[in-house]
């Protein structure tokens, strides 16, 4: 008891009390329902939508949108799998969609409720992750390529090999992602980025360990700020991010390596945890409305799979094979396949690459 009193007097207590009071005043300024009877919970990548579109959807359908963001397919999967939140719409990438379909984690979408699906280009239909187009509606697509700063790199960039060039020691940003980093290394070595061959993977590991001293860091989203600020010469990035960074810093340029790369599609799906699949279908259809898709495309600058939106883009962008490569430009490239069984092997490789200390 006496101890308690001393604690109260000690100022720590008063400080904490002050803290609690301040928090109590500042916190509840958020959260108000707005009188909607229905809600749809959407789970999307960070900064991957024009937020005004969400408000317009609410106004048009009277359905409240709860919007949450994730940063990797893996963390999204883990969170949906863990339950907790009943997400109605999620927007993962191809290989993760395949995995979720295989595990029975997705609801079949009634395409009669998605009339706007007809706007999606044919090349983004019937892909291996969803061959019958039953579970997913493409949102955006892109590639992985090399972003470089023209003031620091003067040779032509057209190969992954430049990431191993000692001239650029400590000027290279790699992706902190097992699948992507091992995948592009496999590509460089002339293998498939979906390899499950022990020798090929061993070769990729050796190559990545060789690269360790040249990499400035293994990064996630912070690579955008880094490259815009000129903190490095070369980075492995997704095509849409590349375009955004190039708009911020005109010294930056982007290249697709000749060895081929990863082409991906992010698509809208309905997890089986959804409590309101009807609202989810309305939401998905709304995202495919030409005007809405155009606004999203304009905001996030990734490549659109929407025929009309593409047609309306400025000539120089839609003909730019860095951001709108045709199918012929991508013959060497591959989609990721679900490699669930190989995950421990990839994990081991990645740990060994990163646990090599000087």
């Amino acid at each position, binding site marked *: 008891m006496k*101890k308690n009193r*001393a*604690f109260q007097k*000690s*100022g*720590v207590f*008063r*400080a*904490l009390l*002050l*803290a609690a009071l301040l*928090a109590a005043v500042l916190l509840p300024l958020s959260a108000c329902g707005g009188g909607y009877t229905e809600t749809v919970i959407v789970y999307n990548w960070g900064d991957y939508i024009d937020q005004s579109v969400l408000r317009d959807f609410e106004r048009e359908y009277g359905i409240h949108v709860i919007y949450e963001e994730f940063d*990797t397919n*893996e*963390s999204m999967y*883990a969170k949906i799998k863990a339950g907790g939140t009943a997400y109605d719409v999620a927007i993962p990438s191809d290989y993760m969609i395949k995995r979720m379909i295989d595990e029975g984690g997705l609801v079949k979408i009634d395409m009669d409720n998605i009339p706007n699906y007809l706007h999606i280009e044919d090349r983004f239909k019937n892909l291996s992750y969803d061959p019958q187009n039953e579970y997913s509606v493409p949102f955006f697509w892109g590639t992985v390529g090399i972003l470089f700063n023209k003031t620091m790199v003067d040779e032509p960039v057209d190969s992954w090999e430049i990431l191993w060039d000692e001239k650029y020691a400590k000027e290279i940003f790699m992706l*902190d992602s*097992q699948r992507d980093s091992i995948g592009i290394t496999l590509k460089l070595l002339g293998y498939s980025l979906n390899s499950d061959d022990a020798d090929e993977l061993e070769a990729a590991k050796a190559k990545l360990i060789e690269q*360790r001293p040249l*990499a*400035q*860091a*293994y*990064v*996630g989203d*912070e690579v955008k*700020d*880094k490259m815009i*600020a*000129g*903190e490095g010469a070369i980075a492995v990035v997704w095509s849409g991010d590349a375009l955004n960074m190039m708009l911020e810093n005109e010294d930056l340029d982007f290249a697709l390596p000749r060895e081929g790369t990863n082409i991906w599609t992010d698509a809208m799906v309905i997890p089986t945890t959804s409590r309101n699949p009807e609202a989810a279908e309305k939401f998905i259809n709304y995202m495919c409305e030409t005007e809405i898709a155009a606004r999203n495309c304009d905001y996030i600058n990734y490549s659109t799979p929407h025929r009309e939106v593409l047609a309306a883009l400025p000539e120089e962008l839609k003909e730019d094979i860095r951001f709108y490569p045709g199918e012929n430009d991508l013959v060497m490239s591959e989609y990721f396949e679900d490699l669930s069984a190989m*995950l*421990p092997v*990839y*994990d081991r490789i*990645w*740990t*060994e690459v*990163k*646990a090599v*200390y000087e």
Partner: protein
Amino acid sequence: MRKKLLNGPYLAWMLVFAILPLFIVVWYALTAEIGGERSFSAGHLARVFEPIYLRVLWRSLKLAAVSTLLCFFLGYPAALILTSRQFRRRSILVVLIVLPMWMNFLARTYAWLTLLEKNGVVNSVLSFLHLPAFNILYTDAAVILGMVYNFLPFMILPIYSVLYKIDHSLIEAAEDLGATPLVTFRRVIFPQSLAGALSGVVMVFMPAMTTFVIPRLLGGGQYTLIGNLIEQQFLTTYDWGFGSALSLFLMALLLVTGALLMRSRGDGEGGLW
């Protein structure tokens, strides 16, 4: 009787938030799925002792120990200053120490990223003053800096709270008896503050051992620590068994360290721990 009733909520709390999660971790760590059925297996625990993972663990231990020491040598004097001078607005100073802890941990760590980078704020100021650039981002030094910055309040507060409670008449007595300030500190103040100091050490060492955000952001992902390894198992590889085994091993390690520290403390009085 009434006492028992009052215990109820706490017992329920402990059950739901301490015992149950612990049980799940132990369960995953000690079982493996073989042919669709879960059975007991020491495989995950055995894997923890493979050299590559021990190397990661050793590195985490070293970085956490260095950060804890630095926090102690920075935090102790800070707590001393807070108590010794008669500040009129002492609680405001304490708030200032606590304040950073309310800001989002991630945002604070991101801020260091901007401060430390090659063309960052620190280097801009240095180059303006014609001083040589300061490049520690993506090194151990940056990781340690991040830990010290984030965990320092956990060192200052418990030390401060015990120093505050020291009976001032003891210090006056020492002074009356002719002790120099140094002797007073060594023989009167310091021994009485030991409990708080040990709490501080434990409270800094534990999060420093398990952090994964700091090494990823400030270490540039190239300094895999045990926290990163565990995160990777749960979020990327879905090897919950191995992730749990790593967590369990780490927990045991921290428990032993904590127990040893607490034992050496003796009286078990005071502190936040």
